[in-house]
């Protein structure tokens, strides 16, 4: 392979991995919340943006090191989730067909956050960039890649792996999955379903926040990223099968790579059409998603 082709290949690979792992994180967060409390959280994009903006304030305005900022951002999602749960989410736990109620509720939250962002951050700048975690550039063969991007990639994969281990091997994770799959049976087996709801809501949001802050560390962003990300995460969740974290991760990666590869062989616009189109086709053949029971 010529140098140019190597560079193209490696850049496709790196883009696929970074975008894919961030998509995976956000979609996993959305699917955890949907799988447990049946909340299709349309505000996931705004949560993602909230994390990114909060990270920006911590680093750019307050001068905190981005690594510490990232931990703070992910940490702050827990009390925020708790507050939201106590104020609003809890009320609907016993409502039949609550997914519709939750959807409306999350639209309300989206509206409020969007309004707040456009009046605060929206007035300060049209774009936001965080300082890099680490500086410098590494050459992989002929392909130069910013160390910062490698660090973000490593973190994203580490968080995904941690999430996976938690869900697969820890008793809390197992309880969460038990609730996704059969909540009555889980209750009979001693799982406190309501407590696992709180736990999933906090965990899901923490993962979305992690996606948001990592995105902000790897890319510049603006306020429009919220909606794009919300739709992408929904699409990934539907294809992967709502409630399936494995599905979210696999399809998230597929989306990342599709965007990278199709935009080389065709154009970035075709890439956007192609994965949305693929979603429709898959749904017609496997309506409950690829990784559903």
């Amino acid at each position, binding site marked *: 392979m010529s140098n140019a082709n190597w560079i193209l290949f490696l*850049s496709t690979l790196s883009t696929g991995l970074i975008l894919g792992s961030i998509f995976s994180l956000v979609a996993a967060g959305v699917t955890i919340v949907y799988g447990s409390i049946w909340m299709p959280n349309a505000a996931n994009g705004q949560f993602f943006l909230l994390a990114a903006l909060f990270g920006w304030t911590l680093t750019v305005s307050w001068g905190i090191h981005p690594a510490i900022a990232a931990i703070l951002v992910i940490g702050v999602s827990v009390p925020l989730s708790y507050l939201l749960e106590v104020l609003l989410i809890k009320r609907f736990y016993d409502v039949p067909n609550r997914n519709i109620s939750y959807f409306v509720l999350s639209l309300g939250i989206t509206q409020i956050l969007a309004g707040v962002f456009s009046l605060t951050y929206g007035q300060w700048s*049209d774009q*936001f960039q965080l300082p890099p975690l680490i500086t410098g550039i590494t050459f992989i063969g002929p392909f130069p890649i910013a160390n910062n991007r490698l660090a973000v990639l490593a973190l994203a994969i580490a968080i995904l792996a941690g999430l996976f281990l938690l869900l697969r091997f820890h008793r809390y994770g197992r309880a969460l999955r038990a609730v996704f799959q059969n909540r009555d049976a889980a209750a009979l087996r001693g799982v406190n379903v309501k407590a696992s709801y709180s736990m999933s809501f906090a965990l899901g949001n923490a993962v979305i926040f992690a996606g948001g802050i990592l995105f902000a560390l790897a*890319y*510049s962003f603006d306020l429009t*990223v919220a909606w794009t990300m919300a739709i992408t995460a929904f699409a990934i969740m539907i294809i992967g099968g709502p409630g399936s974290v494995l599905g979210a991760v696999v399809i998230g990666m597929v989306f990342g790579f599709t965007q990278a590869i199709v*935009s080389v062989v065709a154009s970035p*616009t075709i*890439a956007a059409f192609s994965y949305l189109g693929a979603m429709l086709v898959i749904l017609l053949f496997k309506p409950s998603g690829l990784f559903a029971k």
Partner: protein
Amino acid sequence: MDSYWKTLAVTATASATLLAAANISAAQDKPPVKIGFVTELTGPWSFFGTSCVAGLKFGEEQINSPGKRKIEFVITDNQTSPAQSVAASRSLDVQDKVLALSGPTSSDTGLAVYGYAEQNKVPFVVPVAAFPQLTKPGSRYTFRLEPNAAGWGYAIAKFVEKQKPGGKIAMIYSDYALMRAITAGLKYQAPLSKLQIVADIAFPQGSNDATVQAAQVLAAQPDYVVVIGAGGFDNTITNQLLDIGIKPQQLIHPFGITTQVMNWGKRSVGSYYGTFFDSNLDSLTPEGKTFVKDFIAKYGRPPSYGENFCFVTAHVIREALDKNPEAADDREKFRDAMSKLKTKETTSDIPIEFDKNGARKEYIYFMQMTDVEAKSYKAKQAFYAEWDPEVIPVYTLVK
């Protein structure tokens, strides 16, 4: 003899004072002239709308000096939505009975107000919206301060032609109407300037990564890369191009906004930016320098060309009304006053004059970044060009 002159002088002074006083009271008695300012205060474009209003406010303060009839800008949010822009225009037209409309800073909201203004015969002064069709042939009520975007593309070709005859250009841009307009001008002029376009990559709205495309650009071995992004993605593209080995000296941004430049930081030293106003220019007028100083004092950053055009808009309207006081109460007369107006940008002395379609004689600077600090930057002028709005077939290039 002496006493005669004295008496005359006193009388003259007295009567002049009286006359002036009468004039003042006449001007002050009249209700203020209302200008409807429909702009993006919420929604994705809110930064541009609010910073435009920030510029406008400086202008509004200056033009309402005592003794002159007050000009009041009725600022209305359009939520960055075209439909809402039309509704807001209608409200300003019907409810507030404004003399003219102004304000939108994005192409689609601008075009929405344009449609309303032309259909309902309301004069429309466009501070910052570069979409060519805002002054398409047959436009009667619209006057635009910002040069049209296809012209910027033309100017880039001219600039590269001068820097490197026969050069190779790569274009990488977001798929927005404004960006397409710029590329249309560039693609038209490039062969005429004997330049070669070696890469032409469009991103759909909402893209977030450009590493692969940066690699494609690198593979095409261009002399210059023209980057035309939007919002955060613009920043991302630039960073990724620099990461992969494109030199800052190869990058041309058709428009530079202060916040953008400062986000790239030192990495952008050496890059070129097209602009219509730069706080570093020596050729700024004293008013221009004061404007820059006051703006930095209040907002902690220098103004960009958008803020400048909104500031200038207030002055332009004042000037048109000062020269034709009767235009303050009659839209048709105000339209005529605007169309006959020959003035200069308050901040830079660049002439303002509108052609039959409401477009002005166009110009652009290319600045090369020499240093970037936390809250300011330094740049030097690399190229200046002026041209007639229709030096290229703008309105057939961009529909």
